[in-house]
């Protein structure tokens, strides 16, 4: 059942992607209407969709830092410790 459902979605991948875009847009727009008076910092109150930007930024930063570190020599061949 689960396999069929996933296959069904995979066959309509483009539609699924558009639905996800729709979902993301909905969340961002809804967040603009939420009361921010209980937020902890001014940035959250003043910047619309602050956490959306923060989420995207965090994701990009984490991926890029990991990639740069990996390329700097941290990622190495699998038999590195073998004698």
């Amino acid at each position, binding site marked *: 059942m689960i*396999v069929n459902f996933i296959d069904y979605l995979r066959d309509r991948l483009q539609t699924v992607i558009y639905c*996800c875009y729709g979902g*993301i847009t909905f969340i961002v727009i809804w967040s603009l209407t939420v009361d921010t008076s209980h937020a902890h910092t001014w940035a959250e109150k003043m910047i619309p969709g602050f*956490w959306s930007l923060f*989420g*995207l930024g*965090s994701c990009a930063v984490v991926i890029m830092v990991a990639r740069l570190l990996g390329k700097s020599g*941290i*990622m*190495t061949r699998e038999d590195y410790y073998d004698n």
Partner: protein
Amino acid sequence: MTTNFFHPALIMIIGALLLPLVRGPFRKAYLFLIPLLTFIDVFYLSQHPGTYGVVQFLDWELTFGRVDRLSMIFGFIMSLMAIIGTIYGLHVEDEWQHIAAWFYVAGSLGVIYCGDFLVLFLFWEMMAFASTFLIWFKKDPESLAAGYRYILVHTFGGVILLLGFVLRYQATGDLSFVQLNVQNPELYTWLIMIGLMLNAAVPPLHSWLPDAYSKATITGSVFMCAFTTKTAIYTLARSCAGFDVLIVLGVIMAIYGIIYAIMENDVRKLLGWEIVSQVGYMVTGVGIGTALAINGTCAHAFAHILYKGLLFMAAGAVIHATGKSKFTELGGLYKKMPATFVFLIIGAISVSAFPFLSGFVSKSMIISASFESHILWAGFLLTMVSAGTFLVAGLRLPYLLFFSENKCSAETWEKAVDPSWNMQLAMALASFFCILIGSYLPFLYGMLPNTEVAYHPYGAYHLSETLQILALTAFGFFLLRKHITARETISLDLDWFYRKGGQCFLWTVTNPLQWFDTAFSKAYRVVGLSTLMTTSQFWSWFDWNGIDGVVDGTARCVRAIGQRISLVLQRGQIQQTIYYTVTFAAVILVAYVWL
């Protein structure tokens, strides 16, 4: 001991000792019964807080059973995880694996209920040694080596802890395991904290965790992911709450773990790095030390044990079926292992803090505590890590295992099936609790140690914050996914120092030192031995000709004189002999009188 106290650890220990005697059809029932009894005991104790099991030993009063709200919540989750872990391992025939796991659980429960450092140390070491066997029982050379590294690192940590509380005892005469004075830390405070910190895998003392957990047996890693680090978090929360340095270390830990998890190619190593990251939240919570932060730490430890156990069980099911643990040798498995896929997704979205799942109600408490304590940088960085957590555990892990291009060999693909009923039951139980915690707040929040603070995670603002972060992280993953695909690499970490250091030591011993030893032996044979022979020959000659000559010559001389005297003086006539004797005596007498 009072009559109504029976230590939960003792049930596990006795159960483990009797396990080899229980065979055949009773084995599985017995395996289920003992952790269940332990859980019932823990539950019973939670209804009767107090101090039990106080024993006088030499000069010290040892406390085995301190039951308060902090120990109750940790005891509860540990004994619950013991049930789930044992069900997951019901199919394992090797009784030694169960015995090691149960001793390990007993160690953890012993630490949780102890009231002084001596008992803590006893159970602390029991945990370290028992868990080492969970690595060794995988029985391949890599696991053997990893087990040795693990036990060496933990022995080092144990020694630091021992040093810390012995120094504290010398300074204060106090062995009790209570909150230390972290405002004015002494050397022993630091040592105790470092000893405890090592078990919580706080950088720079963290490398043992992904190394060991990825090489343990499949059921062993399910146990290990729950007990060592969270027991350490309990001890830190008990003794080092409010220690500022832990905030910095915790945040570093959270970031460090997530960055390494992104680079990882091994399923269980990725989950190991995820533990480092998630425990970072708890360490930060301990460092903040406010009532809300400690509640958050306990709640997150509770939730973390369940979802991380679930993730390790699902990953273990994949490894158990396919025999492969690298993303570069797996992929596309949702067709073959749909049940495992569903359980892993529940664990993954729990750790990612989806609303109505466990991570959402626990993780946010620590982040809120840091904002409320005006430690904004920690709050923002931990929120960034929560985006990273979703990226790694919620997206990368299921994507690489179940959806990405199928990289399985024909043999691997053939072997991939959903695991046995007991493994699925254990995963179902853990999933149930992940959903229960997130959806029915009083279950977890009712157990938290500080009852005076209230926390409400389901506000519109918090929901919108979380959904925005999750949605945009998913979008970021979609855009940048090619950068975090699996590669056939390992990542160098601080264990480089002791692994390479060990190899360097071995090289020094086998090469320069061995060469010197061989050269010395040769030189000795060539120079030393012949010199010795020549010297010996000389002394032999000297002995024969010199010393023996003198001794023999003296003897010959004495004999010759004696013979001459005999010839002159002793001619055989008694009168002459008497005459000589009397004359000689008279001469001596006269000489004596006259002189």
